[in-house]
């Protein structure tokens, strides 16, 4: 059995524990065991980089150091903010020996930048599209998904280089081997407003509405995401969007791991899909 290091980050242990359940179940079905990093701390996303540059490297660097200490060669961070922060920090540590020295002293762990950090799409790519194709038991017929990447899954382009940051195709490629269809649409990489959920809800509703409306207009019958924040906005807040704009979308929002899991024959309960707000009719 393949073992992959696992960094849940705050969301997967809190508001998005359905995502954790989904990722854990799906990985297990693919023969990969997730080993959670012992004593992990906040990745620093959303706040640290605007306050203090050193802090914004040190927070993810400590987690990288823990992974190195435990001999983890691959670390899965299913939240794209976490994975982006970790990948970016690793790059900076590798490129700048002076910074690496300084940060090593701050976090009190020797750092070499050996651990490869991957997000959810990349982990499926590592496992192998063909391996997944071979493992499919229940092809997903009837699904026409709008794959939604949001802001950070593919950006910044210089940090995340696994797909075209403006016109990504990697989720569609995975859906294809699951037997699911996908639609061409326009809001794949637009912002859902997650950063503004607390501060400016009307703006968040407007941005999410555009995404849902465009997906619907292009014939999608569900959305697929790989980010806990996107999921909160598009799933939990979908009713608020509908109320605000007098519309009715009824678009279930799946994590990419949900669809892989379903195709592998797992139940909705096993994947935590029953915890979602919008249910498939």
């Amino acid at each position, binding site marked *: 059995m393949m073992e992959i290091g696992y960094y849940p980050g705050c969301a997967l242990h809190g508001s998005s524990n359905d995502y954790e359940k989904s990722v854990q179940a799906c990985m297990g079905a693919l023969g990969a065991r997730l080993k959670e990093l012992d004593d992990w701390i906040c990745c620093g996303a959303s706040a640290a980089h605007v306050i203090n540059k050193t802090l914004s490297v040190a927070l993810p660097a400590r987690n990288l150091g823990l992974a190195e200490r435990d001999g983890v060669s691959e670390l899965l961070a299913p939240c794209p903010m976490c994975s982006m922060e970790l990948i970016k920090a690793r790059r900076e540590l590798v490129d700048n020996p002076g910074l690496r020295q300084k940060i090593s002293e701050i976090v009190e762990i020797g750092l070499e930048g050996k651990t490869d950090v991957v997000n959810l799409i990349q982990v499926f790519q590592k496992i192998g599209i063909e391996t997944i194709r071979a493992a499919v038991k229940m092809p997903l017929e009837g699904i026409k998904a709008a794959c939604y990447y949001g802001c950070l899954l593919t950006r910044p382009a210089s940090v995340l280089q696994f797909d*075209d940051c*403006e016109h990504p195709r990697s989720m569609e490629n995975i859906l294809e081997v699951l037997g699911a269809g996908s639609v061409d649409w*326009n809001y794949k990489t637009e912002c859902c407003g997650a950063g503004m959920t607390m501060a400016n809800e009307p703006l968040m509703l407007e941005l999410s509405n555009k995404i849902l409306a465009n997906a619907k207009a292009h014939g999608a019958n569900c959305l697929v995401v790989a980010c806990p924040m996107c999921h909160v906005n598009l799933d939990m807040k979908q009713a608020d969007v509908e109320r605000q704009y007098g519309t009715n979308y009824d678009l279930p929002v799946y994590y990419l791991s949900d669809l892989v899991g379903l195709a592998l024959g797992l139940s909705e309960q096993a994947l935590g899909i029953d915890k979602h707000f919008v249910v498939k009719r």
Partner: protein
Amino acid sequence: MSRIGVFICWCGENIARTVDVAKVAEEAARFPGVRVAVHYKYMCSDPGQSLVRESIAREKLDGIVVASCSPHMHLKTFRAAAKAAGLNPYRVEMANIREHCSWVHHNRDEATAKAIQLVRMSVAKVSQNNPLDPIRVPLTKRALVIGAGVAGIQASLDLADAGHEVVLVEREPSVGGKMAGLSETFPTLDCSQCILTPRMVEVGQHSNIRLYTYSEVESVEGYLGNFTVKIRKKARYVDMSKCTGCGECWTNCPSKKNLSEFDYNMGFRKAIYIPFPQAVPARPVIDSKNCTRLSKGKGCGICEKKCAAGAIMYDDVDKIVEEKVGAIIVATGYKLYKIGQEQDSEKYTGYGEYGYGQYKDVIDSLQFERLVSASGPTGGELKRPSDGATPKNVVFISCVGSRDNAKGMGYCSKICCMYTAKHTMLYKHKVHDGQAHVFYMDIRAGGKNYDEFVRRAIEQDGADYIRGRVSKITEENGKLIVRGADTLTGSPVTIEADMVVLAAAMRPADGIEELAQKLKVGYDEYRFLSESHPKLRPVETNSAGVFVCGACQAPKDIPEAVAQASAAAGKVQVMFAKEELTREPEIAKVNEQTCAACFACVRACPYNAIDKAEIRDRSGKLIKRTARVNSGLCMGCGTCVAVCPSKSADLEGFSEQQIYAMVSSLV
């Protein structure tokens, strides 16, 4: 050899501030063989040079050392002075006591001591300098011009009119280049074809021009004044000597749906075709991939049946011809940067956000030229590619790729501001109730009547100029939703457009690297060919006898390309004004008596300047084999000297013995 003069220059304060020139002169006067040692404030000045000349004459000097600046600055000056005084110019040495000494040291005593040592070495060297004569090289007064766009056409006609034979090679089936496909040109809006086609015809008919279209340069050998060029004439499947250009073949060819390269895939052509009606030569080629007969090896054959002249040759093959020329002008022009995701090099990335290649109505600026050109696929009527509707709202985006380091191009493509202004005008003149919007970073309109032209586009033709970038183009309900920013008002802008035109960056034409390597011409990080000096030698290259003009050197517009082409032709004429050429004689020489014919030098020479030769007696009997330096090619780098195991190779004017003498003088 014992009558050496040493001339120490103060270079004003440059040397004298740090080096005690009087002390250097005093010391130098005591070196073996030195007859006279003097110092002077500006040795390169007229009085300084007279001092050198008079000393040579008075003291009957047989060698001089000038201790001053770098030989790059003034070696020529002092060699000329020596020659004027009757001394062989190759018995002049320079000791660089400025760049190598006074400019880089602070301590006066130490700098003076170093200057003395530098002079000592030069004296030791000059005492063993052989008198040399410049090498005379014969000159073929014919020129090769590569590329028959407007620059290549101009250069060829200039040279041909001056009475020189020109070999003009063009890769495409017709001459004319990019300009032949343009609609109207800025800043006068004169029709591009109307001004170009007479020149194309002239090229086709000129008795001094040998035109090879649908041909490429295969290899280049030789050197300044004596190049041998092999040209690949690609199989045309049409006998040019028989074809009358009547058009029966392409009118009747049933293979119609082939994308036209000349229309940038916006229109169609036959499998046997001329790219456009005014093509020169007006002789077709067969596109073997799309021709039924050629791709399947049988069937069709309609063109052959229709050709009254019997010019169709289905069994045609590529042919290699050889031409001898004395000079080469490169005018291979440009192509547009690919906007979409697929790029030809990892260095470049595309703009996924603009949807080029995904949305039919997002086109590049050369495609727009064809859409508004009378000879274009729509006959000059502005119809958008997706459904043929007249676009009422058109967005033009400048700097697509240009000035964007993130996409791999840091440079300004220079012509886009102007042609985008022109595009908005042409659009408005065709669609009176339409609106043109331009997203720009800056408007760069330097040039005669250029800024006035842009103002006209804005003020008279009402183009809506928005300073800012476009972040995304999407398609909704048949409209292109263009979202961007107006950075002057600081607000986001959304325009529902019917068509979007992207001013893609200019890049050198395909194959430029291979060609540059064949010609031994340098290129920059963007693959634009390097001129020899950015200001003073703008059309020369570091490869002697090879010149550049047009957009292969840097992005430029038609007037500039034409001016540069005439400049290149002028430089070739300067060369051709002489009966023979001379080269510096400081090159390698092989002692053929001691050469063991191992030919290590032949393999090591970076210029292919060493031949394997045979020495035979009168009856033709082989005495020995030897390496022999081609004095036309040798650049005097000394690699052969370093590799020769029998010490048979040596450099004239820089022999191993001289280097040994220099070292010995110090120890």
